[in-house]
């Protein structure tokens, strides 16, 4: 009971926080708080196996994948608060209030006595008792669920699968191709030159200088050049100086 009264406020605040915070990663973090608190509640209710599984599966794997995707696609910008659908906010408030009312009424009418049968259920130890149930009475549901999950996983793989039309070029083939290109067109063999970050300015959109003083266009990332496509890339040192000066302190 102590665990419940300690954790319940934390969980409610965290759950409300999920709705309120702007950044997706913060919401995921708060969700982790709710999940871990739930796991601790399981532990305090003498379901230790569920405690471990809740953390390993939900917090450790599923939410981690959420985070992975959030970070990968970079959804860390704050949400905009402008209403896109007219009356959206009012409708959401009304429906939310109705839902809360329903849940409140439903929960209010249910009365629970103290839990009975925990001793008998855990008589052979929590884990063996759970295994006993899972692989006898509920084996069909268990197998069906696993089949469903496997189908989903295979389905995701099939959808994301791309047939390779030609064999994948390995390190050896790539090296051979590079040498070939050099022999045919004289294209430089080695990696591209680094930008002028270390030369005089601390910005990756400053080109590196070749030994004769001319800027190397190859040293600039094409995406960065494209970003200022209203300007032509600088042609020599003077032009670079001018460009950096016009950017002011921001570029340094």
């Amino acid at each position, binding site marked *: 009971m102590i665990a419940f009264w300690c954790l319940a406020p934390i969980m409610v605040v965290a759950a409300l926080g999920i709705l309120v915070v702007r950044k997706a990663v913060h919401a995921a973090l708060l969700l982790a708080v709710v999940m871990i608190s739930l796991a601790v509640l399981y532990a305090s209710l003498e379901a230790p196996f569920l405690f471990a599984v809740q953390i390993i599966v939900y917090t450790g794997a599923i939410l981690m994948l959420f985070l992975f995707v959030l970070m990968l696609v970079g959804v860390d910008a704050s949400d905009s608060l402008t209403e896109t659908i007219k009356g959206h906010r009012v409708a959401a408030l009304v429906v939310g209030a109705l839902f809360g009312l329903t849940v409140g009424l439903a929960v209010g009418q249910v009365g629970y006595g103290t839990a009975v049968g925990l001793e008998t259920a855990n008589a052979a130890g929590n884990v063996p008792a759970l295994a006993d149930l899972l692989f006898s009475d509920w084996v069909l549901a268990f197998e069906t669920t696993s089949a469903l999950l496997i189908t989903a996983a295979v389905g995701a793989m099939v959808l994301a699968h791309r047939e390779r039309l030609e064999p994948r070029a390995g390190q050896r083939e790539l090296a051979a191709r590079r040498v070939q290109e*050099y022999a045919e067109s004289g294209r430089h063999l080695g990696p591209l030159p680094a930008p002028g970050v270390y030369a005089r300015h601390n910005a990756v959109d400053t080109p590196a200088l070749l030994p004769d003083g001319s800027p190397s266009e190859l040293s600039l990332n094409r995406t960065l050049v494209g970003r200022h496509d209203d300007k032509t890339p600088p042609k020599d040192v003077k032009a670079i100086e001018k460009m950096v000066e016009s950017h002011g302190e921001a570029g340094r």
Partner: protein
Amino acid sequence: MISLLAISAAAPEDLSAFGKDPWWLILAKVLAIFLVLVLLTLFNIWFERRVVARMQHRIGPNVHGPFGLLQSLADGVKLALKEDIIPKAADVVVFVLAPVIAAIPAFITFSVIPFGPVVGLPFTDRTTPLQLTDMPMAVLFVMAIASIGIYGIVLGGWASGSTYSLLGGLRSSAQMISYEVAMGLSLVAVFLYAGSMSTSTIVAAQDHVWFGFVLLPSFVIYVISMVGETNRAPFDLPEAEGELVGGFHTEYSSLKFALFFLAEYINMATVSALATTLFLGGWRAPFGIAHVWAGANQDYWPLLWFFGKILLFIFFFVWLRGTLPRLRYDQFMAFGWKVLIPISLVWIMLVATLRVARNEGSFDNLSGPFVPIAAGVVIVICLALMFWPASEKKRPTDQRSGVRREVPRAGGFPVPQLPESGAVRGAAAPLVFEESDR
């Protein structure tokens, strides 16, 4: 001879020794674990530097304190006094929280590691196990808490607001999830043999033979995945300094960086302790010693064996770091998913089959350790075969890949052509630059 097939039924799960300590004893144990971990970290840093130095024909830190043992303490103080920088682009709350999230779980996992048997406390008549607590799913508890620790690294990478950190965080989340699967699967065979997931019962089940010998493939897979799980070389891709500067901790400094550092070293100790507990008989004395000296497994002597085995693993970590280059990321992931996990699954099927056959009495007329050892040999051969063709396979693809192999120039690769009169011997002509008209 001990029948390997008969070792499991000996140890029914009995956790009655736990949960009876008074509050002051629990507090003392918690403090002791904390102290041991911090000291072990300081020692391990020094140990690693010394061992790596020896491997590189250097001496390593040997000035401060006896054998240079206080070097890591001095470094720690220096680290703590450095300027604490929070980047402008950082998400401050998460940035500060991340090292704490990484460090705390590292400490918590040690609460279920058995350091020794039930011992009598000095100056009292009270007996207590040398372990903070145990649970019916203690090993799963370690896995669960470790998976929370990953958040520290991932969030630290995200919150720094820098590309290198983000890439490091992404790498570590993918890497640790993948290798946690292989690690979890390697543990299943131990659970099957010990008939329990509690650490003290697993140690008790190894009183005749260590699981590291009986379940050799599981042991090998666990050792490989534990290196991946702790981000250590050759699997230290999240902090690959050649590619990502410092990876997830690029932007961290001072005490926050120290926390990440601490977490990494404690995690090393944790996975080593878990490997010791699950596969090397935990606190039990190595073979033969208990026969010669009956007291080797009693009182506080098991601490010696336990820490000895942990140090053995730490030495292994250092050895790997001193010898192996870092893997390429795709090879590393392919190794985890396409090699370790399938082998684990096949091995678990084998072990489970053996267990069922034993329970049904199929081996009653077949005594001795023949079957598991034969199975182990078969698996090792399969493992060897899996790695064997990797070096041979590359060559034929050369013909298939459609890269034309005509000689690009006389001499093959783009080296300067030889002078017509043949190779020139003797000193080269002095190098002269043309005057540039700039």
